[in-house]
């Protein structure tokens, strides 16, 4: 086996395309999982059992079935009901939805960790419930959960290659395509491996910076 810099150079244009797709999937998947996870967490705290029960059942189901199965389901089954999205959109939705069932638990822990005295002070000041959430509880809860959410961003990054299974050309998809066409496997796979490490590292540095700014 010989390392061929020429193959690296040939692969790079495809690599940039794949990188863009991976970063898109990661960014949008993160946003969806952060927002949806918070929605689930809040719904799980409503007094109505008729809201909590279905939300609990659906999220439990999603959390305990493989992401790959969910990807296939959304990509191959939904079109039979005349619901079609592009492969990348489907992938982003699947990743965001899947991880939202994890982030909801992070949010729940963060909300539970806000001392009961904060709720009592808000009541004593007669703050409306909505304002208590938006001005007092959530700012404190979110601050606490940033490190844990960051871990899920890294986990999501490592799950983005699954999108290849529904024809999305992410970094791994591009690498595989290139390998099959050129019979050169080492170079493209090494390049994307290094890219994954660099993205993980950059993300963790960014998150640590964010953490430091938020901790008070």
């Amino acid at each position: 086996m010989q390392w061929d810099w020429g193959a690296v150079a040939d692969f790079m244009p495809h690599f940039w395309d794949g990188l863009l797709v991976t970063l898109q999937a990661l960014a949008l998947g993160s946003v969806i999982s952060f927002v949806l996870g918070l929605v689930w967490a809040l719904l799980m705290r409503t007094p109505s059992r008729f809201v909590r029960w279905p939300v609990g059942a659906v999220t439990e189901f999603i959390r305990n079935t493989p992401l790959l199965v969910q990807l296939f389901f959304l990509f191959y089954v939904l079109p039979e009901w005349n619901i079609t999205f592009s492969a990348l959109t489907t992938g982003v939705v699947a990743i965001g939805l899947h991880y939202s069932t994890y982030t909801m638990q992070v949010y729940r822990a963060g909300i539970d960790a806000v001392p009961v005295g904060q709720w009592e002070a808000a009541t004593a000041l007669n703050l409306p419930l909505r304002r208590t959430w938006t001005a007092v509880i959530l700012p404190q809860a979110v601050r606490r959960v940033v490190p844990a959410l960051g871990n899920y961003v890294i986990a999501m990054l490592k799950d983005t290659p699954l999108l290849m299974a529904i024809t999305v050309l992410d970094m791994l998809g591009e690498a595989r395509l290139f390998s099959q066409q050129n019979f050169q496997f080492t170079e493209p796979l090494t390049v994307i491996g290094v890219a994954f490490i660099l993205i993980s590292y950059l993300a963790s540095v960014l998150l640590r910076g964010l953490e430091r700014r938020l901790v008070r």
Partner: protein
Amino acid sequence: MTDPGSHTNPPVDGSELIRFDHVTKRFGSNTVLDGLDFSVDAGKHVTLIGPSGSGKTTILRLLMTLMKPDEGTITVAGDQLFPASEKQVREVRKKIGMVFQQFNLFPNMNVLRNITEAPVTVLGMSKDEAEQRARELLDLVGLADKCDAYPTQLSGGQQQRVAIARALAMRPQVLLLDEVTSALDPELVAGVLDVLRDIARTTDITMLCVTHEMNFARDISDQVLMFDSGHVIESGPPEKIFGDPEHERTREFLGAVL
């Protein structure tokens, strides 16, 4: 000196402001308040003393609507607080302010915003007006220079004084003080008590305190209520309760804490 106790329609001094009728509160099988009757007149400073677990703090928490009684009625300035609709509770709650043992300042807001948050969002005060009033109140509690500080940057005594200012900013008719110096380092207690003495002396606000600071109770109280096992076993002016208690339990209790 500003007037932190001023409110839109002050009750007539001496009229009944708070009334508990046959209030019972249980926690599981433990009956904390057992058919309690008691009332507080407007403008009075009333101190609740007694051993821990005798139900003193529960009274304040019931008044602040942090919990509901199992039986009985609670009335504040003629309006029923329990039983009552959520809307009515919100209305009555406007008349009541509370300072907690653990301060409970909002750590995500600076001092100024801790104080202005409720006047702006609940009373609909303009931001400028609320801030100006907050600065006056901070001046009153001796922390005029701490507007921009965050709670974690303050000592416990300073946090508690901000909490007092925050409660007063809502212009309550009643101020509930729940063991406000119990969580403080000993050297910080005096500063907080001085502020409260000042407020007691210069305003017409009604105060209801639970405290273990007997000297403070003696200084500010018009009336002292001795609690034991969910009942008021003795009440009277501080000179009487501290000087010549009638009940055996009161003598025992005071003997242990003084």
